[in-house]
């Protein structure tokens, strides 16, 4: 009997393996649509893309419009008046404060969430279910209801407003970091740590050289979520911050409540949209380490 391998495309198989495409992965001919369904799919793709993209359009158009009166389809005069007005409103300082606040929130909430997730994933924790519910509760809690109360507590305890904002935002971020790390730890193999320790690594060495590199992509995702919490917040900064912190959302809100500020609101909004998008691009490129895979 002779075996022929002529119909096996080695190149293709290798490429598929590198991309980790398995039979049954998305985009295989089997579930590909044809005919009417194909048209429907393309149409719905266009509609969905419009649905998600359309709100970005005013930001881009208004950002570079010096004057743009009502019936005109496109800005009449392009320019940087919006940018100038935004800078005059203190955009740079607010951008800096937003960035600092979000980074601090991410820097605290990520390790705290990771530790909590590790403890929860071991399933030996007393009251594990109760703790899970408590850690998840800030997601469901109406922020204004908690903020009205905690504001009084923080004021009576003489906590500086900046610290109060950081504390509340860390708490809001903890559910996201904990549960995204929880997912990561559910797929984590303790064997790597144990092997390292068996081979004589100290626990510190095993943590830094084995454990952290393996969970790094998940940590990056968690940190991104925590960053978003700090970056998006308006209410906590407004009420608990008591005017001590002027972040980007605060000056966007104050500009937007005025009339005729469209282009400066658009510039400010655009500057609030871009940093998370850049981070998202980095985070989504972070791949899981694959021990044994040639890089």
């Amino acid at each position, binding site marked *: 009997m002779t075996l022929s391998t002529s119909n096996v495309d080695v190149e293709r198989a290798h490429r598929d393996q590198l991309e980790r495409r398995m039979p049954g992965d998305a985009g295989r001919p089997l579930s590909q649509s044809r005919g009417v369904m194909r048209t429907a799919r393309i149409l719905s793709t266009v509609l969905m893309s419009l649905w998600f993209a359309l709100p970005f359009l005013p930001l881009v158009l208004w950002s570079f419009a010096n004057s743009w009166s009502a019936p005109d389809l496109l800005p009449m005069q392009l320019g940087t008046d919006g940018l100038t007005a935004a800078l005059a409103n203190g955009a740079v300082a607010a951008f800096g404060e937003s960035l600092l606040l979000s980074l601090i929130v991410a820097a605290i909430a990520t390790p705290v969430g990771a530790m909590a997730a590790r403890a929860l994933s071991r399933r030996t924790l007393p009251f594990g279910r109760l703790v899970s519910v408590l850690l998840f509760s800030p997601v469901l809690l*109406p922020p204004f209801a908690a*903020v009205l109360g905690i504001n009084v507590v923080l004021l009576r305890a003489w906590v500086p407003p900046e610290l109060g904002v950081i504390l509340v935002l860390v708490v809001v971020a903890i559910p996201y970091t904990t549960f995204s790390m929880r997912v990561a730890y559910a797929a984590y193999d303790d064997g790597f740590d144990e092997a390292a320790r068996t081979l004589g690594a100290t626990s510190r060495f095993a943590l830094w050289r084995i454990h952290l590199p393996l969970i790094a992509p998940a940590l990056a995702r968690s940190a991104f979520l925590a960053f978003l919490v700090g970056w998006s917040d308006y209410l906590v900064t407004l009420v608990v911050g008591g005017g001590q912190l002027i972040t980007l*959302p605060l000056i966007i809100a104050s500009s937007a409540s005025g009339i005729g500020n469209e282009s400066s609101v658009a510039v400010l909004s655009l500057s609030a949209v871009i940093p998370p998008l850049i981070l998202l691009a980095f985070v989504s490129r972070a791949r899981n380490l694959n021990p044994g895979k040639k890089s």
Partner: protein
Amino acid sequence: MLPAVIPVAFVVIGGVGTTLLQSLGLMPLVGAAELSTAAFDDTDELLTSALLSLSIAVVSTAIAAVVGFFTAVLIISGNWGGRIVGVLGAAAVTVPHLVGAATVGLLLSDSGVLARLLGVSPEAWPALVAGPTWFAVVAEYAWKESAFIALIIVGTLATRITSYDETAAVLGARRPARLRLVLFPLAAPSLLVASAIAFAYTLGSYEVAWMLGKTYPEPLSVMALRLFNSASLTARPEAAAIGVITVVLTAVVVAAAMLGLRRMRAWR
């Protein structure tokens, strides 16, 4: 464990507890503490606001759930189109709600970008922003939360769903049948959880309704913040009372969602 539990317990229990005490008149700014339910007395006003908040949350979450589910199906299909929708959806998730409100305002107002695109004059354009229908508010929530719901479904199901889908295809199931009998039941638990989160968020959120909504009647959060910032001494307990009502409403809806989730698991 403790570094996470202590701050969360402090803010959640301390925050809600203090709000509750304030609403019952036990923590007045001045004067003696006295137990009273005076803050809950204006029932007409509270009921109007609660119904308004609930309707906004129900409508926008319903739209977001439908759009989010079909978006997830498109993304999971793995075509180039799905990839584009996935990237745009992820971009929408990162946008702060306040920025979303600002840009939806620029899009939907009577001299907004959509009116210009469609060539409708400002006079003929319906009052979508700050109008009687709360259209812009609902649109903003539906936009942001649909992206959120889609990404949650994709995140939990992307790896499992295609193999089931293909099995059904091999066994001869047509596309609508696969959608109804395979994709939807598999996605239903995460759809429910994500919708419950979106609903709770919408009910408790402030900035979107404040920026794009009418001044009267007010949703719960807007009324609470206005009372909180007002000079009147009786206003603080009233603001806190609204907070308590919102917490209770959220808890009821979340509990219902959890019951639904349990029944889904039992059914499997």
